[in-house]
């Protein structure tokens, strides 16, 4: 009995010591968070639009978070590879995903990916939002969207797109459906080759997020924008909206860059997520960040400090669109 008491006492003391040992670093960890660089997963290749935008924001974000960022690029299967690898990374708020909500939610809906938005992964903070646009190269014969649509009623008009699961692709399919025009979508697997195909005349036109033709300057001519109004008329030659030009009633098609974390991080480390959100929002209004965005050739009007609710609502709306156009996008 004595031995039992002694052993039980020893066990209790040991358990308390162990609990103290385990809890102290956890507490210390929270006050120290983040105690190292932030790892950022980009589900596309280096040198693309996501890389450009991620570097612009993290440059200024370091001022508020007092930590630098490290980037990992996982291109492949329209972003699936990046998402799946991200889900395997440490879920403690030190690993973030820099997402492009539009195309990536469509990919998650259409491909066999074991990730459910909301249940497994949450977009916690938007950084920018831009509408999709139809544009042509500077040497193209098409001056207006109406001309392009008229031609597409006579023959299939080729449109370069970054990938089939993309809001711009959905926009073109919806436009074709509404006007009786036939658009043949050609996926080039990335913004740069997609733009090059339109500039060099391999295809008739291109559909990409609006920042792409804007950064190309005089090499590109914007014909129409999938939005309720043109957010940057002076940078797009006062291009009309698609609905204005084509007389349609299509929904606005946008895509937002946003930071995401594993859903478990929200439950286990809510204070860390709050810190991330707060510092990102501070960054988005910082004049240095605004200057960095302008320097990259991206309109500052696209900066969008949309919160978690707005980001998740956009993801839900995009998923609904993907379901609607599933057959056309998957070739099934």
């Amino acid at each position, binding site marked *: 009995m004595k031995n039992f008491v002694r052993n039980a006492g020893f066990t209790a003391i040991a358990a308390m010591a162990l609990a103290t040992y385990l809890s102290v670093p956890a507490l210390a960890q929270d006050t120290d968070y983040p105690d190292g660089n932030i790892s950022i997963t980009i589900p596309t*290749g*280096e*040198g*693309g639009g996501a*890389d*450009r935008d991620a*570097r*612009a924001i993290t*440059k200024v974000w370091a001022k508020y978070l007092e930590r*630098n960022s490290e*980037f*990992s690029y996982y*291109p*492949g*299967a*329209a972003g*699936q*590879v990046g998402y*799946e*690898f991200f889900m395997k990374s440490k879920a403690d708020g030190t690993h973030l995903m820099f997402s492009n909500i539009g195309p990536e939610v469509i*990919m998650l809906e259409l*491909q066999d990916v074991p990730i459910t938005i909301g249940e497994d992964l949450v977009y916690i903070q938007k950084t920018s939002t831009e509408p999709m646009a139809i544009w042509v190269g500077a040497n193209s014969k098409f001056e207006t969207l109406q001309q392009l649509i008229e031609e597409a009623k006579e023959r*299939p008009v*080729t449109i370069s797109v970054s*990938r*089939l*699961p993309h809001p711009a692709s959905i926009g073109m399919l919806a436009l074709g459906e509404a006007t009786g025009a036939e658009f*043949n979508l*050609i*996926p*080039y*697997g990335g913004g*740069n*080759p997609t*733009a*090059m195909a339109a*500039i*060099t*005349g*391999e*295809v008739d036109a291109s559909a990409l997020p609006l920042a792409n033709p804007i*950064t*190309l*300057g*005089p*090499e590109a001519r914007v014909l129409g924008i999938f939005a309720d109004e043109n957010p940057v008329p002076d940078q797009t030659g006062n291009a009309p909206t698609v609905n204005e030009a084509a007389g349609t009633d299509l929904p606005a098609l946008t895509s937002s860059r946003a930071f995401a974390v594993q859903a478990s991080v929200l439950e286990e480390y809510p204070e860390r997520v709050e810190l991330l959100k707060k510092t990102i929002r501070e960054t988005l209004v910082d004049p240095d960040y605004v200057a*960095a965005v*302008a*320097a*990259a*050739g991206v309109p500052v009007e696209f900066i969008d400090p949309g919160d978690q609710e707005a980001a998740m609502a956009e993801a839900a709306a995009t998923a609904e669109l993907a379901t609607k156009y599933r057959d056309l996008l*998957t*070739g099934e």
Partner: protein
Amino acid sequence: MEYDLATVSGLFGHAFSMWWIMIPAIMVGLVAGAVPGFAAHNTIIILLPLTLALNVELALTFMVSLYCASHLGCGIPAILVNIPGTGGAAATTLDGYPMTKNGQAVKALALCFVASVLGGLISSIVTLFALPMLSKVGYYIHSVEMVVVMLFGLALIASIAAQDMLKGLIAGAFGLMLGAMGADHIYATPRGTFGFLALFDGVPLVPALIGLFAISEALVMLEETTLVKQGSQSRGRVTWRESAKEIFHAFTYWWQIVWTSILGLIIGALPGAGASIASFVAYQQSLFFSKTPEKFGTGHPQGVIAPESANNGVTTGTLVPLLAIGVPGGSTAAVMMIVLQFHGVPFGPRLFVEQPQLAYGVIAVMAVSYIMMIPFMFPMVRYMSRITVISTVYLAPFIVAFTLVGAFVPRGFIFDMGVAVAFGVIGYIARKTGYHVAAILIGVILGPLIERSFLLAMRISGNDPMVMFSSTIGNVLWVMLILTLALPPLMQRRRAWLERQTSKSHAGPDA
């Protein structure tokens, strides 16, 4: 921009004044090129915090010098230990490594360096004066034409298979099959990935390259005591005079360097094309025009010159779409564009209007980088060839360890080390059973590229196969391709017939 002597000398003078940043960049580039896995774009990404902190001109100078040097450096392991660290160096192994085994490592290194430096220098100078014309190449060469251009490279399988057609074609088809693994280009449907996420983006090129060549070679190497074949002249210590002699002798191949580097420049200027395609096409064309095609693959100097000068011709070509149009043509140019954007520098035609000194200065920096590499050639030729005298007992394990790290570096996946080992085993079995690993490799490298262009062309045409014959340039290229394939056997038959006739006429009177 008007090209008078003062302007050009001003550009070059300014480029030379940045020697203090170019020399370290060249040294980093040479090491990055020589270490498998550290290609130029990987290294530039790793060093982005540095380049983003520099002013834009210095940043571009640093990146461009590093990029050029890495293309020179990647030939070193390809020649000495059969490790092509990049797709662009894969063709160099075909004759470079046999030269090393024949005891001609010094000569092979000299050929590699001279071809790289001269090829890069020529293509830089051509670009400086012909940039507007080169920028138009992309407007005429689209997916259809790219399919035919890449078929020139694929035609090498036929040449390799010449000695044993069935085995050569099986090896080539096996390579194409491996190259088809990964998500498809249109619907991103996974094919042959066996559920491995790491294979969704296709067979990783560097692990496949170094597995097929280096690991299998290391296994074969252990069967001998030295790298160099018994009976071959092996020089452990090479004097400065001998190094210089080989370097100067390499300049006698100047004409082949000129045309293969320009071929590399044109292919490099095409969006999406790169060093892998250029080096294989240059090798194949050199074989076609050579007076001694039968020597290719056995350690022929022309087989080292062609891929190396084309590989370095690509460096300037890759920058053409970025500079002239504003869209990067390859991964390295894409990373360079990030730096330009970060500093708020316009690119494309606006760069030439708003900052012409910077736009043309980049090309001048490339030319000067190659000039600055000349002094590096002599010690590299002299000392690096000594690796061939190391006993294979030490060299083989070192190669395996070195290449496994190289397989890991590009993507950071442990899985890729397994891929390298698997390809090493495939390569070893292929060597032991008489299947040419180069034929497998050509399929792995060019297969996905051809498939992509083919699918794009077909989709643009609405799945009409006649699209392949719908363009004038494409049709000219088809004719050239057919001639390339048909003429060598016809010429060979004619030579054999002539020889028979000659021997008959000689035998007639004697009999």
